[in-house]
C-alpha cells in the first residue's frame, strides 16, 4: 500500500543487485539507523544502554555469526557459547598481554583467533552431518568452558578465576573499563556491529553465500556442480566463529567488563543464540537483529509483568520464562520455521501488491 515502486527501473546490474533495490526500503533502513545513532543517545539512560541496547547489539552479532553457519550453510551448531568464550578470553589475553594494541585491532584479532578454533571444531563436518555434527559442536562447548575454567593461564592466574577487562579508549573516548560512559560504549557497539553486519550481508549475497546455500539446500547436487563441500563448510565454520568470537570479546569488554568465563558463556548461551536465529529467521540478516532483540527484551518484559505486576516470586517467574521460550520455539517452528523475518517478508509482499491478492 505504501509502495510506489513502478518507474524504478534498473539500467545497470549494480543497481539491480543492490541490497535494497526498492527505494522505499532503503529510506526506511537509513532512517532507522539514524534514529539509533542520533535520537536514542539523547533519550537513552544508563540502564537502557547497559541492560537493553548494548546486549541486543552484541547478541545480534553473535546471532549473525550463528546464522551464517546454521541459517545459510545449514550446519547446526550448539557451541556458540564456547566460541564466545574463546573470543572473550582472547580479547582479555591480548589486552593484558599487549597493552599497546589498539582496541579495535584487539577485537578483530580475537575474532580471528576464534575463527581458528572454529575451523578446528569444524573438521568433523568432513565426515559427519546433521545431528552428529550438532553433537560435535556440543563437545566444543564443554571442552572450551572446561579449558578456560581449569587452566589458570587463561585467567592470568587470578585467584577468583574471573577475567576483567582493563580500560581502553577509542578516539579518545573510554569504551571499556569501569568508568567508560554507557552511551559511548553503545555508539561504538552500534557502529562496529553495523559495519560487520554489512560485511556479512556482502558475503551472503555474493558467490560465497551462494556456495553456502547450495550446500544447505542440496549438498550432493552442490558437489556435483563443482563446489567442494568440505572447504565450503570449513569456511562457514571459521567465518561464523569470527563473528561469534568478536561478539564474545565485545560482551566482555563493552558490556560485562568482568566475567567468570564458564558461567557467562555456558551452554544456555548457545541455546539462547540458537533461539534468536530461529525466532528471528534462519538465513536472514534482519532476522538476526530482530531475534536478538526479542530474546533479550522478552524476559525483561516478562519479569516486569510477572514480578512487578502479578507479584510472583522471581524464581517462579524464571520457570515461566523457560516455558515461554520453549513454547515460542515450538510455536515458531510449527507456524513459521523461517521466523519473524519471513513473516515480515510476507507482509511486505502483500503490501506491494495491495489491494490485489496476487
Amino acid at each position, binding site marked *: *500500500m505504501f509502495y510506489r515502486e*513502478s*518507474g524504478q527501473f534498473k*539500467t545497470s546490474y549494480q543497481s539491480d543487485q543492490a541490497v535494497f533495490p526498492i527505494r522505499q526500503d532503503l529510506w526506511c533502513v537509513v532512517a532507522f539507523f539514524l534514529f539509533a545513532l542520533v535520537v536514542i543517545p539523547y533519550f537513552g539512560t544508563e540502564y537502557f544502554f547497559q541492560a537493553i541496547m548494548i546486549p541486543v547489539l552484541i547478541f545480534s552479532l553473535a546471532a549473525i555469526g550463528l546464522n551464517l553457519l546454521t541459517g545459510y550453510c545449514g550446519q547446526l551448531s550448539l557451541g556458540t557459547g564456547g566460541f564466545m568464550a574463546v573470543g572473550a578470553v582472547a580479547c582479555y589475553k591480548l589486552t593484558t598481554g599487549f597493552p599497546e594494541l589498539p582496541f579495535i585491532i584487539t577485537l578483530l584479532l580475537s575474532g580471528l583467533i576464534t575463527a581458528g578454533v572454529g575451523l578446528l571444531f569444524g573438521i568433523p563436518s568432513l565426515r559427519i552431518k546433521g545431528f552428529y555434527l550438532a553433537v560435535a559442536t556440543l563437545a566444543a562447548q564443554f571442552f572450551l568452558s572446561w579449558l578456560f575454567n581449569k587452566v589458570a593461564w587463561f585467567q592470568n592466574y587470578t585467584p577468583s578465576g574471573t577475567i576483567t577487562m582493563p580500560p581502553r579508549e577509542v578516539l579518545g573516548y573510554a569504551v571499556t573499563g569501569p568508568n567508560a560512559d554507557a552511551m559511548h560504549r553503545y555508539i561504538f557497539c552500534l557502529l562496529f556491529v553495523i559495519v560487520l553486519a554489512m560485511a556479512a550481508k556482502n558475503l551472503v549475497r555474493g558467490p560465497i553465500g551462494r556456495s553456502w546455500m547450495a550446500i544447505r539446500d542440496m549438498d550432493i547436487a552442490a558437489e556435483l556442480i563443482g563446489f567442494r563441500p568440505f572447504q565450503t563448510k570449513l569456511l562457514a565454520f571459521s567465518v561464523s566463529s569470527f563473528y561469534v568470537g568478536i561478539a564474545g570479546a565485545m560482551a566482555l569488554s563493552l558490556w560485562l567488563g568482568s566475567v567468570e568465563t564458564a558461567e557467562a558463556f555456558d551452554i544456555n548461551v548457545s541455546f539462547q543464540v540458537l533461539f534468536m536465529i530461529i525466532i528471528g529467521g534462519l538465513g536472514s540478516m534482519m532476522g538476526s537483529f530482530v531475534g536478538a532483540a526479542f530474546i533479550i527484551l522478552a524476559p525483561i518484559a516478562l519479569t516486569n509483568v510477572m514480578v512487578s505486576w502479578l507479584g510472583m516470586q522471581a524464581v517462579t517467574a524464571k520457570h515461566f520464562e523457560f516455558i515461554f521460550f520453549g513454547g515460542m520455539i515450538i510455536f515458531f517452528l510449527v507456524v513459521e520455521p523461517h521466523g519473524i523475518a519471513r513473516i515480515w517478508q510476507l507482509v511486505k509482499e502483500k503490501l506491494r501488491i495491495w*489491494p490485489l*491478492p496476487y
Partner: protein
Amino acid sequence: MVSANLDSVDNISHTEDTFPKLLLKHARERGSEPAFRQKRLGIWQTLTWQQAKDTAEKLSFGLANMGLERGDKVAIIGQNTSMMYLSMLATQSLGGVPVPIFSDASNEEFQLLLAHAEIKGAICQDQEQIDKVESVKESIKSLEFLVFEQPRGMRGYTQNYIYSIDGLIEAGVSAKGDRKNNFEDEVMAGKGDDLSTIIYTPGTTAQPKGVMLSYRALILAGLKSAKHEGINAHENVLAYLPIAWIGDHLISYAQHNTLGFTINCPESPDTLLTDLKDISPSYFLAPPRILEQVHAEITGRIAGAARLKQSLYNSFMKLANRVGDRITSGKNVGPFDRFAYLLGKFMIYGPIKNTLGFNKIKVAFNAGDPINSRIFNFYRALGINLKPLYLQAESSGYVCLHQQNEVRSNSVGQAASDVELRINEDGEIEYRSAGIFSGYYKDKKATNSVLIDDGWFKSGDAGELSENGSLRLIGRADEVGSTTSGVKVSPQYIENQLRFCDFIGNAVVFGAGRAFVSALITIDNEKVNGYLEKSDENIPADEEISQQDIVANLLEREINSINTIFSDDPDNSGLKIEKFIIIPGQFSSLNGEFTQMGKLRRVFVTEKYKKLIDAIYGGNDIVDAKASKNFGVKAAIKIRRL
C-alpha cells in the same frame, strides 16, 4: 528546444523536416540523453541519441553497400526493438522507404504485401520472420537481401543473400571508402515532402492498401498533437504495439524522433506487464483490446481478494466513479469528496496504478476502435487521463483532440487546430489537415475515390457532430445503416456493448438493410466454465458447451439487459437485438475474423458464416444439420429468440 518551433509548426525548417535530420539534431543538441531503453539481459540497456545516430549511420553504410537507392522499399519485420526503429532511420537516411509489416501476419499476407510494396530488402528480427520471407521469396522479384537481428538458430542458413545485422554493418563500414556521400550529406538530401513510409492498413477488406505518408505530414501531426497535450522531450514511452500499426509508428517513431523523448522496448512479450510496471510510462497508447484485458485482470483479481479488501475497493471505486473523472479533468468538487478521494488515492487508486505501472501517466490514448464506456470510466476514475483518439493511418492520427475538461468515452473530441471537419450528406466524416496522406501506393483509383476536391478526405467513417463541435464516431460508413423497418443500426456500437457483457466472448451484429437486428456470438469460455462449475451443471465432455440451453439462457439475460439500455437511450429508439446464434469456438486473427489490431473483418465473417446468417433471416428455428456440421457441431445449431 522543441517548443521553439512549435508555435510555427506549419513551416518546419528544412533542417528538421525529415526524421534522419531530426536524429542528427538530437544527437547534436542532446547527444547524452536516452533515445532508447531496451530491456535485454535483465536490465534496461540505454542507447543515447549520440549512440542511436552512430548505429543508424553504420547501418546506413551497410544498406548502401547492399545498393539501396533513393525510393527503394525495405520491409521492417519484428517486435519492438531499438534495432527495428533504427533500421527505419537508416533506410530513410539513404532516401529509402521503410515498410513496417505485421510480424505475425500469415505467409499469404507476407507474399501479398511484400510483392505489392516491391521491397528490395527485408530487415527481420529473428529466424521465424526470416523463414516466412524465405518461404515467399521466389514470388518477389524485387527482393535482393534479407537481414536478421537475432543470430539464434540462424547458424544453418548459408544463403549468400542473408546477412546478420553485424555482418551487414561490417561490410558497409569496410566498403565506406568507395561511396560519394557521407552520412550527413545523404541525410540532408532528404526533403520534407518525400515519402517517409508506407503503412499498410490491414484491410478490413481483403485487398491491402498502402498508405503513403510524407515526412511533413507525420512531423506536423506529431508536433501539433504534442503541443496540444503538452507532450515534450522528457516523456517515457513503452513501445509494445506492432510497429506496422499507425498508432505505434506515430508515437514510437514520428513523435519520438520529432520531440526526442525516450522509447522503452520490452524484454519479451511475456514480460510485458512487469516491463510496463518497471518503466511506468508518462505517455501511453493502447487499443481497446489491451485496456479491456487489463480491466478484466484487475476486477478478476479483486474478486479473489479478502472480503475487507473487496469492500474497501468497491466503496472507493464507487466514490471514484462519482467524482474521479471530474477531479481528473480539473472540475470543482466538494471539499469532503476531494478529501475522500485523496484517501482513496492513498489506499486504492495509487496502489492499483502502481501495480499496473500507470501512476506516472500524463496522457493515455485509446485508439483503433471506440471503447466501452464503463471500462473507459474505470480508468478516468482512477485518475488516469485516458482519452479516445480518432486514429486513421490516412490522417497520421491528427483529426480531433479533446479539451481537457470535457473528455467522454463516446466522443473523440473537437476538430484539432488547422483541421477542417464536416459530415457529408450520407453521414460520412470528411476532413482535411496537414496530416493527410499523399495517396495509396500504386492505387490511383482508390486514392481518387477518397481524396476528393482540394484535399478533402472521405474517411469512410460515419459520425455525428454535437452542437459544441465534438465528434461522435458511429462506425464504418458502409456498415451503419437502418433496418427495413427504419431503425438506425451501428453494428460496431452494439458489438461494443455485447463484448463487455459477462459470458460473451465476441459478437458480430447484422441488421443494416435487413428485417431486424441479430447477432452471432462466441462465449467467454473461462467465465462460462466457471459458472457451470459453480452451478454444478455437468455437461458431458463430448458435448459442445456453446450449444447448451443453460448457456443460451445466460446469454439471453445479458442481451436483454443490453436491449433495455437501448430502449432507455433516445439515440437508439426502437433498437433491439431479436435473434442470436451462439457459434462454437472463438474468433481470432489466425482464422481471419480479426486483423492483427483486433479489428473485425466484417466482409470475411459475413462470408464465412453466410449459412448461419441466412438461417436467422430465413425465419427457421434451427440451422440445418449439414451446415451445423461444418462448424463442428453434432446437433443442429439452435437460433435463439428474445
